[in-house]
């Protein structure tokens, strides 16, 4: 334990790296345990329906509307 403490407190860079490693480890473990997910953008209006969780459907709807456009004809 003392040896580890000596290594961590060797210089400013080792303190920074150790702090960031602990910080990231705690964040990732908590994220894994709680299943934390980002709240994605969900725009709801009658003119433009976009949900990034359903990206495939959005692309499909764009492809469908593109195939019926005058340019594609």
């Amino acid at each position: 334990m003392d040896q580890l403490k000596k290594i961590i407190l060797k210089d400013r860079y080792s303190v920074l790296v150790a702090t960031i490693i602990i910080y990231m480890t705690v964040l990732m473990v908590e994220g894994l345990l709680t299943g934390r997910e980002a709240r994605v953008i969900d725009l709801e209006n009658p003119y433009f329906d976009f949900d990034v969780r359903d990206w495939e459907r959005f692309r499909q709807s764009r492809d469908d509307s593109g195939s019926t456009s005058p340019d594609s004809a």
Partner: protein
Amino acid sequence: MNSLLPAQFVALLRREVLENRTLFIAAPAVLALVLLVFALWIISMAPSARIAEGVEYLSIMFDGLSPAEMAPMFLMPAIPFIMMLYACVIIYLLNALYQDRKDLSVFFWQSMPVSNLGTVLSKIVTVIAVVPVFYVAILFVFYLLVVIALSLLGLSYDVQVAGLGYMFLAAVVSLLLFYVSTFLAALWLLPTIGWLLLFSAFAKRTPVMWALGVFILLGFLEDLIFGTQFLGNWIESRINFRQYIVLDLPMAMDRLFSYDMLFGIVVGAILITGAVYMRRFVD
């Protein structure tokens, strides 16, 4: 020796205020002055009948209403002050452990019987509890001047101004909400405070670049190495505007005793511990 600790800590807080009075007192005072001048300019442009109508409307609107119920409305005019507070606190935190290393006064402070922990804690308490007090005091004077100006205007146009008293009471009660909001927001942002202090203690120059650069790099590295985005998700879960405003005291209690608040404090404590140990290394 232990009996001296509270007095020593108060002295450290006083030092922080004295060294940063431009950020903590002058900046919000100038903002209040600018807003007052702007309001006067707007009033001077408006026709007299419209001004009389406006004062009468305000007076009638607030007359007899509970100040506690109307108080949240006065958080709206306080938003520029809240933004100024955040800007000043970010500048302060980035320089807090950097400036004294830069001007070498750190050697003087380290020769004093003050621990690194005490120094770093004094900076955190300054941000969380002391700085909002100055903003509350300046907002109080600001609201008082606004109410006096409105009352004088109302009297000059022969309009009933009794309701403005209720308006002032609501504004005063809103100062409590302002203080609680900024206090809880600071606790909520403890990881950010710790992060800025860590790089303030670490960087040999431009701590802002280090703080931003390492943060962005970490996000990319996490995605690259582990294929996860826990850092980004965590940050995203804490940047909702509603998390920074408290509209009543039960809401404050819910916010304070929540899991997310507790976890944020734990993460903040890790970074603050890093800043305390980093303080050992002085160039």
